[in-house]
Structure formats: structure tokens, C-alpha cells
């Protein structure tokens, strides 16, 4: 196997989902542009170019409202599964391991291995930060995406309001507006549904070969076992 083919195979999960993301984002832009222009045309206003739509608040809010909920989902999942358990689920850790676990189990500080990340072997703040870096990044991306949703959301909301001959509102007013919370909560509920159903379905159902599933022959009682 050549080095290039090996790289593609070894990173296929990230590459395929990354490419899928770009393709679907492009599809969303094309469909969103057509929908936006349909509204403008119906109101006898001039349609916007594709490039103009990509820079519009309408497109930005539709993108960021989904981003924030996805990052929230992963933040809650990463953080929540430290403590929350589901008997029989491969998404859960073993039932006696609830909590941050011992240094030995986590291979940090004096228990770090030669191939452990350097900051896992470090002491103090660096180790504490690195030990929470995945959740911290997801939480940061969630907060930034949610902030971006609110900023682009108020612009899109006000643009539509002006088309409907209504007064624009401030960013602070928008944070309490039904539009902001409708966009936010419709995404949160779907993410929580997906996580909750995955946790319980994976107790009883299997997907052969997937690390998200238990081995096909594993007991329904087996917890924290990945296939």
C-alpha cells in the first residue's frame, strides 16, 4: 500500500465526513439561495446573487444554528458521560467507573506512559487543562457558534422585519425573542433525542464491526463494551 493510500485509509473517517460536510454545506447554500430569492421575488424585490447570499445573515444563521447544537450535543455527551451511565450501553462507561477516575486509570502524572501526550505527564494546570481539553474545545465552539447564531440571527430577523414594514430590534431584545429561542430549541431537542435514543437502542441492537455498537454476541447487560 502506498503512503498516500495509507493516509487516506487511516484518516477515512475524518476525510469522508469532512467532504460530506462541504458537499452538504454547498447543497444547503444552493437550496437556501433559491428559497431566499423565491421570497424576494414574491415580494417584488430584487433577487440576490449567489455570492451575496453566501455573505448574507440569512445563510449564516441557518448554518450557525445547526453548528451550535451539534457542538452542544458533543460537549454534553463528553461531559455528561463522565458521570451519567446507561446499563448495557456501549455509549456508557462501566457502572463502577462513574466520575473522573483515578490517575492510574487515566494514565496521567506519574502513571503516564512513554507514548502518553506530554501534557498528560505534566503536573498542575497544564495536566488539568489537557485532561479537559476535548470538552473545553466543544464547549467553546458551542458558545462561539451560539453567539454567531445570535448576531447573524438578529440581522436576518431585522432584514425580514424591514421587508414586512416592521421596526428592527436590538441584539439584546433578540436574545429574548421567540425567533431566537425557536431556532435554538428546535435544534437542541433533536440533538438530545438522537443522543438519548442512541444510548438506549445500542443496549439491545447491534451493528457488526462498528465501534459504536457492542459486539453482536455481547450480552444486553454488558456495559462499556465496544465492538
Amino acid at each position: 500500500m502506498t503512503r498516500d493510500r495509507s493516509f487516506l485509509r487511516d484518516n477515512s473517517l475524518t476525510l469522508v465526513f469532512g467532504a460530506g460536510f462541504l458537499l452538504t454545506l454547498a447543497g444547503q447554500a444552493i437550496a437556501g439561495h433559491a428559497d431566499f430569492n423565491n421570497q424576494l421575488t414574491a415580494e417584488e424585490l430584487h433577487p440576490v446573487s449567489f455570492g451575496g447570499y453566501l455573505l448574507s445573515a440569512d445563510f449564516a444563521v441557518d448554518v450557525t444554528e445547526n453548528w451550535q447544537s451539534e457542538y452542544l450535543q458533543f460537549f454534553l455527551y463528553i461531559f455528561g458521560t463522565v458521570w451519567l451511565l446507561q446499563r448495557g450501553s456501549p455509549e456508557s462507561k462501566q457502572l463502577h467507573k462513574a466520575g473522573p477516575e483515578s490517575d492510574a486509570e487515566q494514565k496521567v502524572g506519574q502513571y503516564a506512559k512513554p507514548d502518553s501526550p506530554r501534557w498528560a505527564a505534566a503536573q498542575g494546570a497544564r495536566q488539568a487543562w489537557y485532561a479537559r481539553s476535548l470538552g473545553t474545545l466543544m464547549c467553546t465552539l458551542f458558545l462561539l457558534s451560539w453567539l454567531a447564531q445570535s448576531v447573524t440571527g438578529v440581522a436576518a430577523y431585522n432584514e425580514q422585519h424591514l421587508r414586512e414594514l416592521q421596526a428592527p430590534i436590538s441584539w439584546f431584545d433578540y436574545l429574548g425573542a421567540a425567533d431566537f429561542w425557536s431556532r435554538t430549541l428546535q435544534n437542541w431537542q433533536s440533538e438530545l433525542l438522537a443522543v438519548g435514543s442512541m444510548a438506549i437502542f445500542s443496549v439491545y441492537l447491534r451493528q457488526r464491526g462498528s465501534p459504536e455498537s457492542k459486539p453482536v454476541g455481547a450480552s444486553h447487560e454488558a456495559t462499556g463494551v465496544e465492538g
Partner: protein
Amino acid sequence: MRAMRSGLLAAALLGALTACGNLDAREDGAAGAASRFEASLRATDTVRSCAALAPGTRDELEQTAELPCARALPEAGLPPAEKVRTVDVYGRQARVVTDKDTLFLSAFPGGWKITAAGCTARPEKPYQCLIKGG
């Protein structure tokens, strides 16, 4: 991969800066269009006033009055204003509040056009306007 990430970041920053930099220009454009419309009303230059209207607004005015725009517009009773007080621009839509009137505008290839004028605010409802699109 790093070059691609840097390119995407630069494109996002450029887009944000372009959007911010354009805001002042768009506000000036909307305010200028409103001022020129008000000046044409004061001068009773109906040709210029009608040319400043968005196509949908002009059509609605003519159909409602059953008159050509140049004759229908003076009968609409728009209050000619002197000064622009505030301008709000979001995307391709704008609201311009003058000393005597509130106007709504939309961006067209030839510049900002008036979509509604003679507008009065109503609590919890859209503005009530003397002229507007259909």
C-alpha cells in the same frame, strides 16, 4: 491542510470585514436615496419621485389610484421631509426615519429604491404606510 485552514480563516475574516466595511456605505446609500426622494417631493418633481420608487410599490400605487404614478403620487399626501434622523440597514433592506416621515427601502441594481413611504409606527404591528408594495 494547514494552508487550506488558513485560507478558509482568511476568507471568513475577509467576508466579515467586507460586511462591516460595507455597512457605512450602505447606510449612506439608503440615506442618500431617501434624501433625494424627499427633495423631489419638496420640488414636486414627480418624475424623479416616481423613478425613486421600487417597481412593486409603483405598480401598487398606480393600480390602487387607477392613475399613472406622476398623477397618483401627489394625491398620496406624503409629507415632504427635510432631514434624515436615523438609518437602519440589514442586508438589502433599510428603514430611514426623517423629521416628518418614515421610509422603507430595498437594494436594487440601480441603487436603493423606496418600498414604502408615509409610514406611521403602530405598537406590535407593521407600520401603516400611505404607499407600499402589494
